[in-house]
């Protein structure tokens, strides 16, 4: 009996079937659900780590100790974990280690679309790519066995389309996990001082050459002979597009994209009249094949930017003359006025909105970070001015200050992001005494990826109560003397705290705390507000908050000629931030106050 599984659920199932004992990761779209699903299985220790580097170190330690292990992250997470990734390649392991790095072609939820197959070549680590959920599941035990056979970490590279698509999967049983033996001490292999590392480098070069030879008969590298006039080398979800758009073409589908099986590729190339590579993002396979001296077409036909789909592939092939014009689907012109967009925005009741209202009012430069609050860059608030990568806000604001920029500046960073990579930045701020207020937007969860726990929430991934990091105490212990905590919903208190931090002599921290309005416990307390239409004069001050629950009505105030505002009761949570903004008291607070 086959079941529909999303790629991420399938990877978790594969880890369980493959006897993984320890898994660690940090949430990041499109990888988050893997660890959430794995945490539900018996016999697996699955943990959120504060960041991807720590996650990979934990998985690596487990693999050193003889337990099969997995580290899970999104593609940019591997940048954070890169040091450990290269180290893992150098040392090898005692038991299988799989690193799942989920790439995001199309940047559905990312700041770039880097192609992490490059990392595999860089670090001499084999790369496996599934093309549906069945393979996503099956390739995990395969990767673990490969890891052990060659004493190497293995990278599994799903993409958003694999991670978030559901396809039918035949389930298997769990392999009994190997017993964890007494710890085997081998300093020459596991202590990477120069003397040992110099001996290891030739070992990993020779290892990747052996993997390449083995890849010639790897069953997931599969040649499908059909019409020989066109041969397509492909991998991952692009295989599905190749089958759909070129049903007659011969296909070499690579389940292992690094290292490539040179003999298999040569034989395939010799067997077809024209060789094409269809792959998302970088011309990775294309370059590897060119290095063999084989003429091949790839990115001159298909785009290197963005996600592919059958229509994109078909159109590119028609334009390149690979398919006749008659293959073009009839296109329909849809006559419509310009349509208003529906961009992601801060939710109704979002505690961040109040803080950004204050920052906008104070006209400060805001160095931002990665999380829901990044969305405050959008109008009407437009109160966040930089966002590069996880944890960058504090260092960037520090640099703006040290550059002597005349404007006042602050850093804003969420609680989960602060614990991820914000800590060293704050330490640096205290150490070098840069005059930067840091506002920690503490909504008590990792909200953007769907409410994951972290060391500040007091709960683990597998639901155990645990210690809860006190952010104020952490800031003080790092050397910050000016530390203040406020309720994010209290506009007056937030403004006072930010003003005080701005006039402090040295670095300062303001912790603006309020639980995310979408947390289940908070949802139960929602109580919508209403506008007193007698008092509303249509000034529109409240609309500057950019809250979706505040709606302009068709009813116009006679005196001002402006439309009144109403509150959509289906959206309003009752946070009362708009009540505090309204100068006419037209949005009464609830009686409890």
């Amino acid at each position, binding site marked *: 009996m086959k079941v529909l599984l999303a790629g991420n659920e399938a990877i978790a199932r594969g880890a369980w079937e493959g006897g993984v004992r320890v898994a660690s990761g940090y949430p990041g779209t499109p990888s988050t659900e893997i660890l959430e699903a794995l945490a539900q299985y018996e016999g697996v220790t699955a943990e959120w780590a504060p960041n991807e580097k720590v996650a990979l170190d934990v998985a690596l330690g487990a693999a050193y100790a003889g337990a099969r292990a997995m580290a899970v992250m999104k593609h940019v997470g591997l940048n954070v974990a890169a040091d450990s990734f290269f180290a893992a390649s150098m040392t090898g392991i005692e038991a299988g280690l799989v690193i799942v790095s989920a790439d995001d072609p199309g940047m559905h939820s990312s700041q770039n679309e880097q192609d992490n197959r490059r990392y595999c070549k860089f670090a001499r680590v084999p790369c496996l790519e599934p093309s549906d959920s069945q393979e996503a599941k099956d390739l995990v035990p395969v990767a673990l066995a490969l890891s052990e056979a060659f004493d190497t970490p293995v990278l599994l590279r799903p993409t958003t389309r694999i991670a978030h698509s559901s396809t039918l999967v035949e389930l298997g049983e769990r392999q009994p996990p190997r017993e964890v033996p007494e710890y085997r001490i081998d300093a020459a292999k596991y202590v990477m001082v120069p003397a040992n590392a110099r001996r290891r480098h030739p070992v990993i070069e020779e290892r990747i050459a052996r993997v390449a030879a083995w890849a010639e008969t790897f069953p997931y590298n599969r040649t499908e002979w059909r019409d020989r006039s066109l041969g397509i080398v492909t991998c991952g979800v692009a295989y599905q597009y190749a089958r759909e758009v070129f049903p007659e073409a011969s296909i070499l589908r690579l389940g292992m994209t690094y290292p490539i099986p040179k003999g298999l590729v040569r034989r395939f190339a010799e067997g077809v009249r024209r060789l094409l590579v269809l792959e998302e993002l970088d011309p990775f396979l294309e370059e590897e094949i060119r290095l063999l001296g084989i003429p091949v077409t790839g990115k001159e036909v298909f785009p290197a930017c963005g996600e592919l789909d059958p229509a994109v592939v078909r159109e590119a092939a028609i334009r390149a003359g690979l398919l006749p014009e008659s293959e073009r689907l009839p296109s329909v012109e*849809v006559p419509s006025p310009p349509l208003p967009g529906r961009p*992601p925005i801060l*939710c109704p009741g979002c505690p961040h909105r109040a803080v950004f209202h204050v920052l906008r009012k104070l006209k400060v430069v805001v160095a931002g970070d990665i999380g829901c609050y990044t969305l405050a860059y959008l109008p009407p608030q437009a109160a966040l001015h930089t966002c590069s990568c996880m944890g960058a806000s504090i260092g960037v604001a520090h640099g703006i200050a040290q550059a002597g920029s005349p404007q006042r500046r602050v850093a804003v960073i969420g609680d989960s992001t602060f614990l991820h990579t914000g800590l060293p930045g704050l330490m640096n701020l205290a150490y070098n005494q840069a005059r930067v207020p840091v506002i920690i937007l503490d909504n008590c969860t990792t909200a953007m990826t769907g409410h994951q726990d972290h060391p500040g929430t007091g709960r683990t991934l597998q639901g155990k109560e645990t210690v809860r990091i006190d952010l104020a105490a952490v800031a003080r212990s790092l050397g910050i003397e000016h530390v203040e905590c406020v309720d994010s919903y209290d506009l007056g208190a937030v403004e006072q705290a930010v003003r005080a931090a701005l006039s402090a002599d040295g670095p300062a921290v303001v912790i603006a705390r309020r639980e995310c309005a979408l947390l289940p416990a908070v949802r139960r307390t929602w109580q919508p507000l209403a506008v007193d239409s007698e008092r509303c004069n249509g000034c529109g001050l409240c609309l500057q908050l950019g809250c979706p629950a505040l709606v302009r009505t068709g009813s116009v105030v006679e005196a001002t000629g402006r439309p009144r505002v109403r509150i959509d009761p289906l959206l309003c949570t009752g946070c009362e931030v708009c009540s505090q903004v309204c100068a006419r008291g037209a949005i009464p607070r609830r009686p409890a106050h």
Partner: protein
Amino acid sequence: MSGYDFLLVGVGGQGTLLASDVLAATGVRAGLDVKQSEVHGMAQRGGSVTSHVRWAHRVFSPLIGRGEAGYMVAFEKLEAVRFAGYLRPGAVIVVNDHAIPPISVSAGSDRYPSDVEVRRALAAVSANVHFVRALPIAESLGEVRANNMVLLGALSRFVDVDLDCWLAAIAGRVPARTLDVNRAAFLAGRQALSDAEHADRSPHCLGRISDGTAR
């Protein structure tokens, strides 16, 4: 059977993804190969949500390309127009007769398309357009959130699969305590379209759009 390519579009929080799960499970119950793919960006709530569901004897791509979808279930009118370019000419279009104005509209800087504009846009793609007042129907059953099952029920009129497959898929996907209302909503949606077509013999059912635009 050459296969079914369904595009579900709506706004985060409308139950689009549960409907897509049920639709995918129905295809599995009918003994077909099925692929389902969600496309959602950074929004927790309030952003555009689309889901692609494909049924066939063998499905390759999990994504439907522009111009390829044969069926659309739109949970919101603006989203129906936004994604109309994904449909092939003559596609079946089931539209919830419901508007959720984006923030730029409620703030007064953008305009929501009028019903006439919505109708004109969809009519350019297909004559097979069916508006369903899913919210009032679900509300009358006591559970406004079951509006997603009302829309699936309406869609089911155009899909050659036994009713049992749909009902079993619903039973397998919705929480047990909401099963009765979800099943009732599905059947009401199936019936609503049938009633509409008896009442109005015009092939488009367009006479049944409510007046007024945004809520």
